């Protein structure tokens, strides 16, 4: 059925080209997984595609605006609710700042190192990758906003993930349920430490290498232990959802469900290592400044 003569054919045959492209992509894949050479290329392409990415985000922006417009009548209601909430929260915060000061004090007495403090950057989730293999999210804040690799992402309930790639105006975060990912955790109830590893499945983590007779129950809350220095301590991570103690194996099979999730919220917080929620530490600041000035006076 070779009825159409291929008049303008030139260059290498398509089979040769296919072989070339296959080899090139295989090389790229190997280089990308094992070396860091392609980071700049990735960065350049991201910057070039930034307009497209922002444009794709436009419907969300518009729908947000529309929402704002249409729910104006509910605002009074919402405002009242938030006021009430604010009152409750500020009550708690007062207690909290007292506790912060007390904790500082006790730690000083114990000569323990002070807890890590960090500052936060608010970011929005730009997009979620298409295929189920990439447990990552793209955020709308990048190097320009002070986002750095390794920073931790949380929402109002707990840890979501960690920044793994940064670009000038956006960044990429890997979720904690990624297969190659683990978080040092602690059981809130008894302080038992472990490491929660991602499983690659939706909202699921597992605790490896915990002995069969370990003191853990379904419903136990896991919080970050702060060991390793990447995560500030005390952030909620997951709830233990399933424990299987098999006598024939050395370790128990423990499955946990993450508390926070990238699917729930549009807004997330990026914590940098010097975390300190500003509103609640004013008094602590004053207290510490006083302390410092006292120290300086003494010298």
């Amino acid at each position, binding site marked *: *059925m070779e009825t*159409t003569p291929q008049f*303008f054919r030139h260059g290498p045959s*398509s*089979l040769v*080209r*296919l072989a070339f*492209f*296959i080899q*090139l*992509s*295989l*090389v*790229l*894949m190997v*280089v*990308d*997984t094992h070396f860091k050479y*392609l980071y700049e*290329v*990735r960065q350049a*392409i*991201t910057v070039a*595609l930034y307009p*497209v*990415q922002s*444009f*794709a*985000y436009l*419907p*969300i922006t518009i729908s947000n605006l529309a929402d704002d417009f249409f729910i104006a009548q509910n605002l009074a209601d919402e405002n009242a609710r938030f006021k009430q909430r604010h009152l409750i929260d500020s009550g708690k915060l007062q207690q909290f700042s007292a506790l912060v000061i007390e904790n500082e004090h006790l730690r000083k007495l114990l000569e323990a190192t002070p807890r890590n403090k960090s500052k936060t950057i608010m970011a929005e*989730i*730009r*997009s*979620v*990758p*298409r*295929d*189920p*293999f*990439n447990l*990552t999210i*793209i955020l709308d804040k990048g190097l320009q906003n002070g986002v750095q690799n390794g920073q931790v992402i949380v929402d109002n309930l707990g840890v979501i993930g960690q920044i793994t*790639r940064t670009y000038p105006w956006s960044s*990429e975060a890997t979720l904690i349920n990624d*297969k190659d990912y683990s978080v040092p955790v602690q059981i809130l109830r008894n302080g038992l430490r472990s490491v929660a590893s991602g499983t*690659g*499945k939706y909202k699921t983590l597992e605790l490896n290498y915990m002995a069969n007779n370990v003191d853990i129950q379904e419903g136990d809350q896991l919080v970050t232990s702060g060991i390793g220095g990447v995560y500030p301590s005390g952030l909620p991570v997951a709830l233990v959802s399933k424990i299987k103690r098999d006598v024939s194996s050395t370790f128990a099979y423990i499955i946990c469900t993450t508390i926070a999730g990238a*699917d729930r919220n549009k807004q997330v917080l990026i914590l940098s290592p010097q975390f300190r929620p500003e509103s609640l530490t004013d008094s602590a600041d004053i207290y510490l400044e006083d302390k410092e000035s006292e120290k300086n006076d003494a010298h």
Partner: protein
Amino acid sequence: MTRTNYSKEEIILPAKGWFIILSLIVGLLLNLLPINESLLILRPDFVALVLLFWGTYQPQRVGMSVAFFMGLLMDVVNSSMFGQHALAYSVLIFIVLLLRRRIHVFGLLKQAPQIGLLLLFTQSIMLLTELLKRADFPGWHYFLASFTGMLLWPLISLLLKISHSPKYDPNAL
């Protein structure tokens, strides 16, 4: 009958360069739209669909190199391994170049299942590369995207054909 169809398709006007680029960008845009988890499984790979269309109708314009390049862009925006989409797309276009004459013979609706198979094949390549990276099998619903892509094919090809369907005048040539 097939014969006339065949020669009619061959007269199709060359698409304008800017239109091809625009359609690829729109495809990329549709792939990037932020949508929620449940719809995400159903979202077809629009870039692959657009590439398929141009590979079928304008193979001189959109060949393996364009497919490879678009694959690299997809790899970046999708934050997957560099070269993964590029590999899948260039193989896809290669197969389309082989099969395009056969695809031309059928009407849009009959083309759809064949396109579906090609999309399935593309997804399998991506799955394979991921499995080599020791990822877990994500479940059969992963392939649903090919199915929706197949359903969208007639619509997408109608839209893309508008730009360069000949103003019918057999004597013009």
